[in-house]
Each structure stands twice: as C-alpha cells, then as structure tokens.
C-alpha cells in the first residue's frame, strides 16, 4: 500500500513538470509580454516608450532571457515555496490568489475563496439533483422517467451556458427582479449578521451556480444510473429480492451503497472542478473568482499568475486522482497489483 502510494507520488513529479512546461511554452508563444499587452480600455493619450528604457524594464524582470532560463527560475522559486510576483498587480502571486484586497474581506474576498464558494454551491446543486435522478432512472431502465429525464438532461447539456446565463440575468435579474446577478455581495454586506450574510452570498451565487451546474447534470445522472444498474445485476441483489425486499429497499440499502465505489471516480473528477473558475460565467456575473482572474492574467500576459493558476489546477487534479486511486486500492486490493 505505502509502496504503491510512494510510486504514484513519484510519478506525479514528471507529470507536474510537463504540465507547467507546456503551459509556460504556450503563454510564451503568444505574442507580447506583460508590458506590451494592451491594457488600455478607453480614451486618453498614451505616449511612446523609449526603446532602451523599455529593454531595461524587460531586463529588470528577467523577460529578456530565453524561455528555458525563465522557466527554470520559476521552477526553482516554486521549489522554495514561492509562486513568484505578479507582473500586473506588483505583489506576490500567493497574495493575489489567496489574499483579500487592501480593505480585507476575509478568505471569501480572495479569488480562491470566491470560486470555492460558487463552485461548491454548483456541485451541491449538481449532485443533489443528478444523483436522485440517476437512482430513479435505474429503478426502471428504459421506463418513462428514465427516457424523459435523459432527454431533458441532454437538452440541458447541449445548451451553451453563456446563453443560459444571459437569459437568467434578463429574466430573474431584470424582468422579475428576483435575484442579484452582479458581484457576490450586496452593498450593506458588512453590516449584516452571519445568517443574513450567508443568505446574501447564496442569493448572489444562485444564478451563476445554476449556469455552472446544469450542464453536468446529464453526466452525473447517467454515471449514477450506470453504476447502480451494474450493481443491480449482481447476485446479491437477486438474493435480496428473493428474500422479499422491495425494489426500492434493495436499491437504497444494498445497490446504492455498493455503487458508491465507482462513484469515487466521479468524485475524483468533480473535486478539481471546485477550483477551476469558469472564465465565462464568472465574468458575466462579475464574480471575483479565479476564472475572472485567469482572464485578466492572460490578457495582461501575467506569466507568474497564469502559471500559478495552472499549477493550482494541475495540483488539485493530480492529488484528487491520487486520493481516488488510494481509496480504491484500500477498498480493492486488485488495483494495487502491477499491470
């Protein structure tokens, strides 16, 4: 077991280096650099730069070196525990990602906190709806509910979420004026009590969370249905049925529990989604999370920030797959064997 874990962790190192190197090369291949990217968005005079002066500035930030030197330096500082300094914000990347603004705002005020909050709600919505739908579908595969639910979920799956987002903003935000659609907190948030704050956050997160959740319903529901159906075909289920238990009892007491094992995989796939901010949804709903930050980082060619977000994403994916695999191997010794 421990040898297996150690081997897996060692394997992660080259994977990780490869991922970051590819991201680094990709951002470097895009024309421009942190100081040339167009950051102006309005009228007003911008003056010419002096070539020598400009070169000196690039040198000051090491941007005149070949890409592998820059990458090496970045990797080196990562090993010493630093994500580097953001070019566009001129402060440490860790502070940009995990720290709040100059006026505070707590962990929630940080891009990571904001994204966790939004995606957490989205995952809850997704799992809360899709798992029961999957179970109900497995009860009578091919029955009316199964076919109806899968048709509806596939329609949802195929609707582009920016389009749904605009529709929800116009209906719930503008026409009916039921829910907020801009930002994550109301103006008087700081003067609210804890329960009211939670409600305020929830109301702000609801529309974007729906947009993030509905597309995944089909996947999760079908996955649940498949996992349960497989278990239902096993002998012990037949035994349970033979004992005289109802289908419902068999499903909930026996089949679903056993189906949880393949669903570990699903968990492994969904957990990384918690920290991957959606660029489109976060910017449409002005949600101050990692997705919006990523968009800004790309536009301003803020290499350290782009890399840090990629590292964060890669690390969560690698560790959650590792966790799933370890959980599997704990539950099922066959997995541990060499292929």
């Amino acid at each position, binding site marked *: 077991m421990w040898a297996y874990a150690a081997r897996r962790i060692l394997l992660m190192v080259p994977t990780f280096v490869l991922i970051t190197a590819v991201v680094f090369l990709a951002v470097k291949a895009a024309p421009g650099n942190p100081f040339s990217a167009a950051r102006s968005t309005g009228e007003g005079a911008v003056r010419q730069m*002096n070539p020598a002066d400009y070169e000196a500035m690039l040198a000051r930030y090491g941007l005149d070196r070949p890409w592998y030197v820059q990458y090496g330096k970045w990797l080196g500082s990562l090993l010493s525990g630093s994500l580097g300094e953001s070019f566009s914000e001129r402060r440490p990347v860790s502070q940009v990602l995990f720290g709040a603004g100059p006026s505070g705002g707590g962990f929630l005020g940080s891009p990571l906190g904001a994204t966790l909050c939004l995606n957490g709600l989205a995952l809850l919505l997704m799992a809360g709806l899709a798992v029961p739908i999957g179970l109900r579908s497995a009860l009578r595969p091919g029955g009316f509910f199964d076919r109806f639910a899968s048709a509806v979920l596939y329609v949802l799956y195929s609707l582009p979420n920016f389009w749904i987002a605009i529709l929800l903003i116009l209906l719930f935000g503008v026409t009916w004026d039921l829910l907020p659609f801009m930002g994550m907190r109301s103006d008087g948030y700081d003067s609210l009590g804890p329960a009211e704050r939670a409600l305020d956050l929830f109301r702000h997160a609801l529309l974007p969370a729906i947009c993030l959740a509905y597309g995944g319903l089909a996947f999760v529901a079908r996955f649940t249905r498949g996992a349960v159906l497989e278990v239902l075909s096993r002998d012990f289920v037949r035994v349970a049925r033979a004992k005289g238990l109802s289908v419902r009892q068999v499903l909930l007491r026996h089949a679903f529990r056993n189906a949880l094992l393949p669903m570990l995989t699903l968990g492994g796939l969904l957990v990384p989604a918690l920290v991957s901010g959606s660029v489109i949804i976060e910017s449409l709903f002005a949600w101050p999370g990692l997705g919006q930050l990523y968009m800004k980082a790309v536009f301003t060619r803020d290499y350290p920030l782009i890399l840090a977000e990629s590292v964060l994403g890669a690390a969560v994916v690698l560790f959650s797959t590792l966790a799933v695999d370890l959980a599997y191997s704990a539950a099922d010794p066959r997995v541990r064997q060499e292929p």
Partner: protein
Amino acid sequence: MKPPRRCSHAPFLAAALLAFAACSGGGGEERKGVAEGASRPAADAPSARTVGLLPEFEGRAPEPGGTFTRALPADPVTLNPVVASDQISFLVYKWIFDPLIDMNEAMEPVGVLAESWETTPDGKATTFHLRRGVLWQDGKPFTADDVLFTYEAAMDPDVDAVNKRPAFTEVESVRKTDDHTVVVRWKSPYAPGLAAWVFYVMPRHLCAYPKGGGKAFNTSPAGASPVGTGPFRLGEWRRGELVVLEANPSYFRGRPHLDRLVFKIVPQSQTQFAAYQTGQLDMASLSAEQWPQVRDDAAFLRGSWIFEYTSRQFFYIGWNMDGSNPFFADARVRRAMTFAMNRQGVVDKILVGHGAVANGPFYPGGWESNPAVKPYPHDPAKAMALLDEAGWKDSDGDGIRDRGGVRFSFECLVPAEAEMFSRWLEVFQQDLRKVGVEMSVRRVEWGVFLDRTHRHAFQACLSGWNLGDDPDPHQFLHSSQGKLLPSGQGAGQNDVSYSNPEVDRLIEVQQGTFDREERREALWRIHELVAQDQPHTYLLLGSQIVAVRNRFQNVRVSRAGYGLFTWYPSLLEWWVPTEKRS
C-alpha cells in the same frame, strides 16, 4: 520579439476595439422614431446634448450628497499614478491625486495644483506657481518638493514609468525656486511640452525612497493605499469586486458635491447594461445591440441622460510611399484612393450613423483643426481621372488598371482582432474595384501587424491613432520619423515614409510656438498640405453613446472628444438634488 518602441501603439487599438463594440448603435434620444437601421446624415450624428440638467434644478445651488456608481471592466492595476500605465487605474487614481495642470472640456490647459504658469519669451523655461494651502489627505501641506520628488521618481530608470518618461525628453531640468514655485527648463522651445504636466503628483513625505530604491517604489504600499491631494480619497478596495472613494472634505476647491464614487468590477457589457436597467449602476455605455432595445423605451429615456460624442481616435489607411511598391509614391494615386472610397457609406451603413468621416489627423472642431479643410467627397469619376493622369490605365481590358505591365493590385494589412476593420475593407474593396483597382486584404495577428508596419513591410495598412492631449503631429507626419533605423525598425510612427519639406518645417515651427493663435496658423497649414498629399486616407471617427441616470445634475460631455470624465473638473461639478435621492 516585437519591436518594443511602439508598444504604446497597442492601447490605441484596444481602445478602438472597445469603442467599436459600442459605436454602431442608434442615435441620441433627440432622434427617437427614426426607423431602425435607416441611414442618416452623419454630419450631425453626435446628439446635441452636452449638459445634463433638469429644468427644475436650473439656477439652484448644488447640494452635497449622493453616490455615483459605475462599472470598470477590470480591477485597477495599481493606484500609484507614476507606475500605473493602464486606463482603468487612471479612471480611479485621477480622483485621488491631482495633476499640475489638466485639460478642460475644450482641450485647453487649466491649472489644478499649479495656480498659473508662464513661459519665458525665448520659450526656454516655464514657471509653475503652485497653489497655496493645498493639503495632502493626511493633513500635511503640499509643496514644490512633492512635484520634484514625483518628477524624479518618474525619471528614475528603476521605476516602471517607461510610458511617462518620453513626454519629458525635451525637459532639461526641473527645479524649485521656493516652496511654491517650480521652474522647468526646456532643451529647446517646445510648446507641446506643457501637456506633459498633466502629471499626477505624489506625496514626498510618504513615498520618498533612498537612492537606488526605485524597484521598491514600484511595489510600494502607495499603490494599494494611496494618499493624494485630490477631491476623493480611497475608502475601500476589495480586489475584483469594487473600489469606493469618499469625498475629501479638505479639498482645495471645496468638498466635491457627491459623497461617494463606487467603481464596481463588471467585465461584461451585457451585465453592465442589465445592472443599469435595474438601477445598480448609474452609467452604461450603450452598444450597437443595446441602444435599439431602449431607444423607444419611455421609462428608460425618462430616467436617463443620453450623450453621444465622437471619440478622439481616428482610423486611417496608410499608403506606403517608400518606393517599395509602384503605386503610392504618386500623390495623385493617393488622392484617387480617397475619392474612390465611400467613407460616408461606411459611417451610414456599418456604423448606422454613429461616427463621422475624418478629414485629417486632427480632431474635427478642435482648435488645431482647419475648418476650411473638408473631407474628400466620394467621387469615383474624379478618382478615375486622377488614375488616368498618373498613367494607370486598363490596357488589357481585364477590368484592372495597369502601367508598364504592372497590374494595380495591392495588399492592405489589417489586424485580425479588429473585425470591424475587415467589414469596412469589404466595402472599400468593392469601391476600388469600380475604379479599376484591386485590393486584397491580409488579416494578421496584432503582434505581426505591429512588426510589419514598424519595419515598413507593407503596401497599405488600416489602423487607428490618437494624437493625445497636444495636437503636435511630429511622430506621425515628420519625415525624420519615417526613416528606418539600423535595426530595421522605423524611427517613429511615420510608417508610410511621408516626406514633405514644407510640412517638416511647419511641424518644427509649431513646436517652438507658444502663442496658440500663431501655432494654430502652422497647424492649419499642415492640415491643408496633408489633405492635398493624402499620405493616409483618413477614414472616420467613431462615436460613443453613454447613458447616465438623470438624478445627477450638471453632467457635461466634452466637445473635444474627452467624454464625461477625462477632463477637469467634469465629475466634480455633478450633484444630486435632495428630493432625487433614494
């Protein structure tokens, strides 16, 4: 690596792209009822409204109070005005800090921290008399030392102020003669130099750093917790969410009427527009799709001021006349191009009337723009006559003119990111075809576009430009700016290698002329000569439509293209009547 020198070029395009996201909408509210999409005369395209003031509040003294909430597409980068180089940071820090001078709504310099200034008759020195009794927001007095400190910080090679320093290249020295007098000496008499002093001053007592500490200044806390002399001070800044500024009660001009400015970070224009409709924002830029949605909405119009103004940026096609192609060295050919292209048609059909045909590099109606220079009319017959005269005739009957065996077929380079440009070029392609000229369009990525234009490796190119706060056209039209350096890069922005000795002379004359009337004469003459020479075909200027909630009174838009905020005092004169406050 693309040539660094002209990275300042990039923001112009960014501005252009954004401007054009918002410029093909409808007209001002005055023209309500005109059929949607119908083409209208563009000469009067910008709506007539310049001031928003409800009749019942005319003559009433402004009352203190009220909050103005607007959107920003992204967080400010830093609120350190020396280090900041982006427009979004500027929109916020300009209320916290004050410049020495600023431009008013007519693009005339007015004193802010400088009460007055004068230039010696030989033009070699300008003396700024600083306002007395101005306080920093921490209560310390503002003095000449602050001006010197900020200037020295901006000129420190370790400080990331590369986009500020070029404005001071003609400055020989900056000294103080006493605590309230600063003397700037110029290397040579240089009239455009005054505009460089739209320069935001930082407090020496809080920001001074030891020699060699410029790097630390770039990341100093001043960027996150600024202290200025300006009309508002920083109240709250939640990164990615909002910035709140609060009125500074000890502002030298008196406390601004509004209590609070709130900048919410809202990246998408659809969201901004929806938030304006629900009252969460007090201002929205209206785009092509948005304006027709509300132009007949009585409730929307009743609660809003609608302004439309022509942006300062002009768009042009540059004709490379360095001799690398057989077409454009001849002024008759360039004039023919301008006559052949239906620019008014593009303004009417593609911009739906929201723009104006350009007639040169100067802002129409500005003091530097010669009213006698009119845009070339669309006149294909004249274009054909000029091309005949220049020897371009269709000798083989294939519909395309030729001369000495060379077909008149050229390539126009255009940045692929600006989709609007390609739509214009489709129209011009057909126009040129009608006079027997073949234009192919080469769409390239922005970095490639810059690289090729800087190396003068193109036949024609479509781009945008803005001369800035001072109309000096030196880097755009002077022949010295069209030379190639040993590195293969152009020396300036004269990518088309335009060279007219008389224009060169007049550009030098106006640089050394401080009297605006005299300077205007030279600029007007330049305008005439450029109109004759057509080194570029000046295409058009786009316009912006902005809605502001009409509980705000005394809202003014600059007729010099500065819009609602980028002039002085603009927002400082806004106020909200007590009964309009909710």
